[in-house]
């Protein structure tokens, strides 16, 4: 496993301070932290709790409630694959099976996927062009095996 990059505590503190007086600041701050560091470090959670005057347990409770917030960094690109009903009707589960059988990648399993982290999401609002995905935030419609193979190959190429 890749070594966890050291958290820049000062930068984290700065990000937290910038928004701490916003009403209901927790989510905006957590998004800023994840945007900056790629994940929410335990040390950042402690800082957040202190800044918002809530207990650490409460802060951890917020972070862990939302699917978006990662507790450890991911390496490489992030592919969010929709696996909700509309995409099921257009064969997203066959694509998931293909990912595993051909590339050994299992969605939501950080131990698989060289340079490509595949996450399950439920609906990307592109249901008339299912199956849908987001690659590092860029939308993909009518996802198929060829496109998926190209994405896997592209991600591998980047990390080598």
């Amino acid at each position, binding site marked *: 496993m890749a070594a966890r990059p050291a958290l820049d505590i000062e930068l984290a503190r700065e990000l937290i301070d910038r928004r701490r007086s916003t009403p*209901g600041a927790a989510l905006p701050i957590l998004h800023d932290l994840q945007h900056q560091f790629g994940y929410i470090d335990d040390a950042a959670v402690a800082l957040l709790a202190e800044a918002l005057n809530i207990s650490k347990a409460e802060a951890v409770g917020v972070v862990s409630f939302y699917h978006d917030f990662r507790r450890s960094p991911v390496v490489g690109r992030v592919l969010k694959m929709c696996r909700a009903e509309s995409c099921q009707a257009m064969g997203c589960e066959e694509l998931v099976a293909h990912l595993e059988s051909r590339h050994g990648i299992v969605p939501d399993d950080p131990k698989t996927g060289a340079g490509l982290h595949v996450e399950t999401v439920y609906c990307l609002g592109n249901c008339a062009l299912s199956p849908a995905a987001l690659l590092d935030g860029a939308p993909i419609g009518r996802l198929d095996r060829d496109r998926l193979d190209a994405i896997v190959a592209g991600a591998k190429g980047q990390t080598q």
Partner: protein
Amino acid sequence: MSARVFVPSDSAALSVGADAVASALAQEARVRGLEISIVRTGSRGLFWLEPLVEVETPEGRAGYGPLAAEDAALLFDAGFLAGGGHPKALGRIEDIPYLARQQRLVFARCGVTDPLSFDDYRRHGGLAGLTRALTLGPEATVEEVVASGLRGRGGAGFPTGVKWRTVAGTQAEQKYVVCNADEGDSGTFADRMLMEGDPFLLIEGMAIAAVAVGATMGYVYIRSEYPHAFDVFSRAIDRARAGGLLGASVLGSGHPLDVEARLGAGAYICGEETSLLDSLEGKRGQVRAKPPLPAISGLFGKPTVINNVLSFASTPWVLEHGGRAYAEYGVGRSLGSQPLQLAGNIRYGGLIELAFGPTIRELVEGYGGGTRSGRPIRAVQVGGPLGAYFPQSLLDTPLDYESMLAAKGMLGHGGIVVFDDTVDMARQARFAFHFCAKESCGKCTPCRIGSIRGVETVDKIIAGRDRQKNVELLRDLCEVMTDGSLCALGGLTPLPVLSALDHFSEDFAKAPPRAAAE
């Protein structure tokens, strides 16, 4: 004057290459020494034609689609800047039957204008509703919305005007308007399209509500799965401030209002209004027990109007034309127009805004043209993951709140997902529980535990273990979840499950798969 070419920047259009088409057209024009101005718009919602490019001609806008970057040279050869013929020419866009047959009250401007041009918005009739509301005053504004019969478009169908009246009548130093843009139902994309394609309409609707109830701060809670919508909408807020729609004095009325876009963090439950409020407050997105109603004690404990994107976006039309004019659309107690969304295994998927009352069949066959796979339609799920699956025999059910309820379904947010005959309905029932288990906020037991027991019980049925007993148990579990859950997630998960069981019982009686039959 240079020719005006319109290319959508809606994320569905982007997902099939709209940006590449736009740059190929610009590049080709440069090479040929032609001057064109490319306007990025929202989408018309005819998604099988995306990327769909339009050109302004004296006869109106001519459409071309679906295009790829490689089509650029041929388009210029065919004289598309003057609306010339081409294999992908669609003729005048408004004449395409899919669009011509719609009743677009909310989506009238979507795909037509530059979503981030406030001038464009004004030129195309924007602000007429808010302007009239400011003339009418708060009380008369609320009464127009009551008279329109508008009901919450998020799925619950609660009368919008009644909600506004409650907030208006509650005394408080601070009130809020909150827009629920946590559009999590599979098969729905109308909120996303509107925020990307006509964001000022939503801001205008929120301003109408704010002035009517006396709120001075608004929040729009947008799900994180919509990064592009969040980006476009955030920029629209800045421009609305610059244009005087927001700020210290809304359109010079003296009423202050600011709006902030907030990003969700991947939690389906935050589409439930009280979870959304807790999430906005920076907490876990857990459901609150009602009462108190958010209208009395909502965001930060203050009186709050919380409405779906489409509810707010319907009110400018209501105010401009009057509540009674709006109520002339629709049937029974389902008044006005509903943006329906056609998705899944469908040939012509897209956004279809119609007065309430067309049947499911008119949508999936008439507009949708059947499945994309070409196989027969077997099941149609209406209303998202908590909506029922309809078999062929029930496709003539009208799409309005009461008819859907009578058919043991619900209209929800208007999403329609089509499945062909390869679907296994026992698997779909299992997924309904699985989804509920994954997205449950955990506050009430029937939802948190019931969903997991549901997955296990369906697994036993699929595996062929004590089928009759387990089907009985499943029905019993559904009753507990329906009656005992705190909110619609646990309370409505039984809808897809029971509809699968009632209409597709053969899928629960198939020979068990070998791996599970040991």
